[in-house]
Structures are given as structure tokens and as C-alpha cells.
């Protein structure tokens, strides 16, 4: 009994010392708790539907950040991974009658393959060339989709997939827990040695190569990882909407991902996730004026970027926290001395 009490007290001390000291960590904790406990309070199907879609898109936006934010390989064709996975999942489900737990991982593997196919020619290209070339891949595939309507369903897409699960609340828990889990995994990846190499490739690829690191392998790894996570979100989308249509491959889809990620702040993982959770419900909220919905959306993005060009969430984080000049540990902005090394914060 005493031992359990000791561990509980230790846990509480760690919690107080590590989580409660920084507003950003408290916000993340609250975010997790709110998402997980929401169905206890409300089961409004419309609200849950929006949140499910938001979670799916959050995975997509974060996967873009993993590739384009971290390694700097600007990918303008992220819809390719989403669409390939959505179509593969749909085909597997409709023809082989695979249930969703089987078709979604296979769809994600198809997206990894797509990542390799895009990644290999793209390795020779840089910056703007790369961005403009990657834009081409989903459009090529879209043309093929339209040209063989008896396999892909043409403009109507493939519909009639089996449901993700029996009920809306179960759907909600599946997508939310997957989203939280996958985003945490992505964040851990970017925090690991691999993530540091990704950072370095963006900053100075020649220097990384000079340090004896095979940058080609790491760039392909980034394409595959990003393809996998985007593929999971594509499969979830196909099963939740019960349709895989050409809209998953369109240019506007690729642009949408870039908008979410840059709006939230790239090279953060939490930025794109936060941005999706702000922008998608906001777009739903604008339903009161359907014609002007996209106009208001675009105007808000333009105005916010004008004042916070590095993204909304990093800007907010810099307002509430500051970095210790000596030990580089983040502190709440109200403190006058660093919480670790007691150096004065100006």
C-alpha cells in the first residue's frame, strides 16, 4: 500500500514538474482529454461526424509536415497518397470483401509504394522543381481514373464500401485514437535521430552528405513514412465516407493539405494538427453563408499569414513561452528566471 502511495506521489510530482509548468503541455493534455471524453457528454451525430473528418485530415496534414516540413522536400501532390490509398482500400473492400481493419493497412502500403514511385524520380530534383513535379503525379493518376471508368467508377467514384464500424461513437473512437496515436508516433519520429537527420537535410543537404550520411536513403524513408501515414488517413476517409471519388486526387486537395500545414506552422507536427482542428470546424461554421464560405476561409488565411508568417501555433507558443538563453529549456513567459538553471530570462 505504501509502495503504491509512493509511486502515486512520484507520478504526481513528475506531472507537476513536467506537464503543468508549460502552458503548451497543458494544452496538449487538455486536447487529448477533451477528444477522448467528448462522447460521454454529447453524442450529436453531426458534431461527431465533423470531428471524425477533422481527425482524418489531421493525420494527413501531419504526414505532409513529416515529409515537406522536416526534410524540406516540398510535396505539392500529397493528394496522391490519400487518393491511392482511398482507391486501393475501396477496391479491396468491394471486390475481395476485406473488412476495414484489413483494407486500410493494405491501402496504406499501396500509398507507401506510391511514395517510392514518386520519391525515386524526385530525388534528383530540388526546391521548386520538386514542388512542381510532385504536383503532376495525382493529376496523371486522375486522368487515368477518368479514362477507365469501369474499374474506378469514373467521375462518380467507387461507392458502397462497408462501414468503419457499427456505430458513430465507435467510428469516432477509432479515428480519434488512431489520430492521437499516429500523430504521437510522428512526433516521436521527428524527435529521434532520424528526425534530426531530416532536419539537417532541410537545412543543408551537402553538409549532411559530407558527414557520411546517405541522404538518398533518408529522403526515400521520409517519402515512405509520409506515404504510410497519409495512406492510413486515405483509407479511413474511404471507409468513413463509404466512397472513394476523384475529389481525393484533385489539385485542391493537395493545396488544402499545404494550407493546413503552413497555416499551423511547419516543422512542428503539432502545428498542422492544431490547424486542422481550427480550420475544418471553422469551414463548417461558415455554412451560414454557403456561397461565401471559401471566400471567408481564404481571406482569414491570408490575413493571419500576414501577421504570423511562421504559422499560427508557433506564434502563439512564442507568446506564452520563452526559451532560456543558457540551457535552451522552454519556460512560461511569466517567469523571470529559468526553471532549470536559474539564469535570468529577459
Amino acid at each position, binding site marked *: 500500500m505504501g509502495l503504491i502511495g509512493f509511486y502515486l506521489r512520484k507520478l504526481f510530482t513528475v506531472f507537476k514538474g513536467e506537464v503543468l509548468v508549460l502552458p503548451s503541455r497543458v494544452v496538449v493534455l487538455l486536447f487529448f482529454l477533451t477528444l477522448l471524453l467528448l462522447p460521454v457528454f454529447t453524442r450529436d451525430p453531426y458534431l461527431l461526424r465533423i470531428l471524425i473528418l477533422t481527425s482524418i485530415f489531421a493525420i494527413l496534414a501531419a504526414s505532409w509536415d513529416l515529409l515537406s516540413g522536416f526534410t524540406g522536400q516540398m510535396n505539392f501532390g500529397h493528394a496522391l497518397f490519400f487518393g491511392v490509398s482511398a482507391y486501393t482500400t475501396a477496391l479491396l473492400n468491394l471486390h475481395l470483401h476485406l473488412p476495414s481493419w484489413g483494407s486500410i493497412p493494405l491501402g496504406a502500403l499501396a500509398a507507401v509504394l506510391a511514395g517510392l514511385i514518386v520519391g525515386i*524520380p524526385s530525388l*534528383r*530534383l*530540388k526546391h*521548386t*522543381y520538386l*514542388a*512542381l*513535379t510532385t*504536383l*503532376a*503525379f495525382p*493529376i*496523371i*493518376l*486522375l*486522368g*487515368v481514373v*477518368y*479514362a477507365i471508368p469501369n474499374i474506378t467508377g469514373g467521375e462518380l467514384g467507387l461507392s458502397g464500401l462497408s462501414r468503419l464500424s457499427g456505430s458513430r461513437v465507435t467510428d469516432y473512437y477509432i479515428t480519434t485514437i488512431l489520430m492521437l496515436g499516429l500523430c504521437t508516433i510522428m512526433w516521436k519520429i521527428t524527435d529521434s535521430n532520424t528526425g534530426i537527420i531530416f532536419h539537417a537535410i532541410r537545412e*543543408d*543537404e*551537402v553538409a549532411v552528405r559530407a558527414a557520411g550520411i546517405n541522404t538518398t536513403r533518408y529522403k526515400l524513408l521520409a517519402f515512405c513514412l509520409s506515404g504510410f501515414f497519409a495512406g492510413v488517413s486515405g483509407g479511413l476517409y474511404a471507409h468513413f465516407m463509404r466512397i472513394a471519388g476523384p475529389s481525393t486526387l484533385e*489539385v485542391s486537395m493537395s*493545396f488544402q493539405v*499545404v*494550407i493546413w500545414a*503552413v*497555416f499551423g506552422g*511547419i516543422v512542428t507536427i503539432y502545428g498542422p494538427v492544431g490547424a486542422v482542428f481550427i480550420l475544418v470546424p471553422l469551414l463548417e461554421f461558415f455554412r451560414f453563408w454557403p*456561397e*461565401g464560405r*471559401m*471566400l471567408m*476561409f*481564404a*481571406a482569414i*488565411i*491570408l490575413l493571419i*499569414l*500576414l501577421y504570423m*508568417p*511562421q*504559422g499560427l501555433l508557433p506564434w502563439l507558443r512564442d507568446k506564452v513561452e520563452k526559451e532560456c538563453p543558457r540551457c535552451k529549456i522552454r519556460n512560461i513567459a511569466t517567469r523571470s528566471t529559468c526553471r532549470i538553471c536559474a539564469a535570468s530570462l529577459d
Partner: protein
Amino acid sequence: MLLDIIISTLINGSVYALLAIGFSLIFGVARIVNIAHTAFYMIAAYCIYFITNSLNLHPLLGMLTAIVLVTLIGLISYKFFIDPIREHEAAVLIATIALAMILQEVMLLIFTGDFLSVPSLIKGYMEFFGVRIAFQQLLTIGVALVILAAVWVLLRKTRLGLAIRSTANDREVANLMGMNVAQVAMMTMGVSVALAAFTGAVVVPLTILNPHMWMHPLIMMMAVVVLGGLGSIKGSFVGAYILGMAESLVVFLIPMGSFLKGSVALSIMILVLLIRPEGLFGVAFEEER
């Protein structure tokens, strides 16, 4: 058939060449990937529609007004939305996407999503080996070639052209040589948007207007720029006609070709890039560090 293909190659190629040159000018000078470039082309077309159909003025007047107006809109949006965040490349990218979306939505609000058309400047057609060629098509090709020549003269023979080329080549050295780089960027933006507006004015009688008409040219324009080599005017010119021809061939020769035209053109671009990563006429720059 052959003549059809040639005419459509020339028209598509000229449009893509005009758009791509404008796009690569502003990219070269200011390093801005201007997604909204073809949106300006779209609003120029709508401007002409409004002036000719609603105000009942002569199309030629409409075209001139449209070019001036769109250039002004382009300069204003550059000054207020893009110039302040020039240092943040990703933010500029999103700003131009948002700008394009705003222009598209405004046009949707004003003109609705209906398909509209503008009467041609000169009516009539001629028969040529049994193929009807409208005079408007010939006029479009002619004017496009004249504009292309004018751009070449502007870039090669004038002081502004020299400034644009040298800034594109090396911004810092151009600055050290006493050029006002910010002003050059502004002027280039003006030239670039004016080119987009010119393109809109030239093709408007041949195309169908709708607020999403900027998407397809945008993709083709980017493909042309990459194929020809970023920042190379000659490359844009050749690349535009290659892709224009690929599109026309696919449309006329392959069943279901109109769905595949974009795919084939873009596949050609990727194949060329696999062999020559810097594009047809691009120069392999030393890595910018």
C-alpha cells in the same frame, strides 16, 4: 485532322508560353511561386465578358481596360499580401493559393458558376483542305506571337529587361550594382500579371468562361516551366509548344483523350526530368546555400 492538330497546338502552345514566361519572370526575380498567376488570367477574361456583355462596349476597349485593371489588381495584391511576407517562402506559397481562391470565389459570387462566352473579334472562317479555320483562331495565334516577340524585345533590348535579367541571375550582386531590387520586383510583377491578362484577353473568344478555368492552365503552365527549365525564356517557349502539341495529339488521336491530355503531357514532363533534371534549357545552378 492534321490541320486541326496544328491549329490547336499553336493556340494551346502560345497560351502556355505566354503564361509560363510571366510565371518564370516573377519566379526568377523574386523567387515567388505565384499560384495565383492563372487566376489573373481568369479575371481578365471575366473583365472582358463584363465590359462587352453587360456594358455593351467594343471588345477591343474591353481588352485594354481588362489588361490595365488586372495589372493594377496584381500590383496591389503583391504590395499588400505578398511583399510583407517575402522572407517566408512557405507562407508566400499559401498566400498566393489563398489569393487565387479568393479571386475564384469572388468571380463565383459575381458571375455564378455558369459557363459563359464572349463573341469573337472578327467573325467568319475560311475553308482550307476541308477544315474550317475561324479567323479568330488565326488572330489569336498572330497576336500571341506578336506579344511573345514584344516580351523578347523587352527582356533583351531595354534597360528594364536588363535589370530583370540581372536581378534574376543574382539578386545580391544586382543590389550591389545600385539597382533597386524591390522596385525591379514590383515592375516584374507588373509585367508578369500584364502578360497573364494579355493571355486572357487573347484567348477569351475561344474558350468558355467559368471560375474554375484557371486550374488546368495552372498545371500546364507549371509543367511547361519545369520542362523548359526554370527561368529560361527559350525553354518556356519550346516547352509550351511541346506540351501543347502533346495535348492536341492526345485529344485528336486517342479515344477518351480529353481525359488523358493532362496525364500524357505531365508524363512527358516527368520523363524529360528523369533524363535532364534541370529541364530542357535550364542551367544546373550551383546549389544555393
